[in-house]
């Protein structure tokens, strides 16, 4: 298979997943409001002291993104049936292209989730606007991509498993911690004027490692889902 064919398959898989989401509207109508509710509830549980809320706001945003983003990342693989998976195989779709396409579609949806919740976090928590804040746009993108890779992998690993709905979050949540730490540390670094490069490198390395593992193991995983 040529590179052009591979990327065409990636594009088609991503388009298919986004079309399914477009029809269901699950992310916009359910997951985003659910995340917003979490951002509203947390100050009620921990107190409404303004200085504290401003301090923890960015961390809350990334925490909510990781926890609720999991729902976005699992959404597609959860709706897949055995027949749909077999059809993709019969059509000769490269499993690696399926993995990458799915991850990209999830990343885009996660990005939408983050873009809606970020201003809400600013309104509710009022964190200080730090110098170099445009760096956070890159971080939001890398977090979305990393979470999409982990979620797609976990979705494939737990496909068809009876305990899937509880098992998949157990697998994803601890593995996403480096994403949470790096993203929070970048904000802290910008706030305190410290170097943020090591954390960006960590995020990039994490994304790269997950992408490589996902692509390399896509075929054996696909064989087990038949």
């Amino acid at each position, binding site marked *: 298979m040529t590179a052009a064919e591979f990327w065409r398959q990636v594009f088609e898989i991503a388009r298919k997943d986004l079309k399914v989401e477009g029809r269901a509207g699950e992310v916009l109508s359910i997951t985003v409001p659910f995340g917003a509710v979490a951002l509203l509830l947390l100050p009620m549980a921990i107190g409404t002291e303004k200085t504290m809320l401003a301090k923890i706001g960015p961390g809350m945003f990334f925490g909510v993104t990781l926890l609720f983003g999991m729902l976005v990342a699992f959404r597609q693989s959860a709706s897949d049936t055995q027949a749909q998976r077999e059809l993709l195989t019969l059509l000769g779709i490269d499993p690696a292209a399926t993995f990458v396409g799915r991850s990209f579609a999830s990343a885009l949806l996660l990005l939408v989730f983050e873009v809606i919740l970020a201003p809400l976090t600013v309104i509710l928590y009022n964190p200080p606007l730090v110098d170099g804040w445009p760096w956070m746009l890159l971080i939001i993108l890398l977090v979305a991509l990393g979470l999409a890779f*982990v979620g797609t*992998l976990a979705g*494939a*690993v*737990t496909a068809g*498993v*009876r*305990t899937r709905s509880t*098992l998949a979050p*157990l*697998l994803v*949540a*601890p*593995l996403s*911690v*480096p994403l949470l*730490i790096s993203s929070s540390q970048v904000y802290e670094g910008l706030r305190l004027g410290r170097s943020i490069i*090591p954390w960006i490198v*960590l995020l990039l390395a*994490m994304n790269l*490692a*997950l992408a490589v*593992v996902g692509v390399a*193991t896509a075929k*054996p*995983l696909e*064989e*087990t889902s038949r």
Partner: protein
Amino acid sequence: MKKTLSILAPLAVVGVVIGFTFAMTAPIDAYQGIFQKTMYVHVPSAWLAYISFAVTLIASIGYLAKKDLRWDRIAASSAEMGVFFTGLALMTGMIWGRPVWGTFWDWGDARLVLTALMFIVYLGYLALRRSIAEPTTRARRSAVFGIVAFVQIPLVHFSVSWWRTLHQQATVLRPETLTGAADAPIDPLMLRALMVNLLAFTLVYATFMVARVWIAKLEDEREERHALENIEIAGAAISAPDFDGGFDD
């Protein structure tokens, strides 16, 4: 395997006895007192946890490359051992932390929190294995997760260097310690006791690994036998016609 076990098991017992003796006769720390002795269990446990998870990673790659269930049994057994040693490292760390740090648990300590997460990741690995009954599917999916799970180990290991928190930085793998310099951060007698205990723990790991892989092999064979016994034979549902009173000639 029986022969290997009959050699390894007594060696492990002797190793533990010698390790215990060395730990008890090593000098008592001037500041931490008797509580420092937990180091002779804590540090080898943490190292063995890393080794166990590295073995799981290698065996997972081995399984995906060779498609041989022997690799899967090694990966699973080593993950179980890793979870045990991580649990032991966490427990001994907390027991030591209470009198020395003044608390069992400190959220600001990156090593402690990340080690607990590593523990949960591999508990997830074991939960995944229990959720899938079919051996080949279980082996392949666990192998993939065994590789993904290892991604966070460097983060756990280097956390003491990246974040200056309560947990002390690397002691043994420091150039001063390795070259035996006068300003080494550990007393030579303590270092010797630690190394003996590391060897003893490695023998314990090897013994339990051989035993666990053996048990896993027996379990697989039993499952296979069970599957063969319950297999439906073609035509089993067809029975000979039974005519009352037999055939009339």
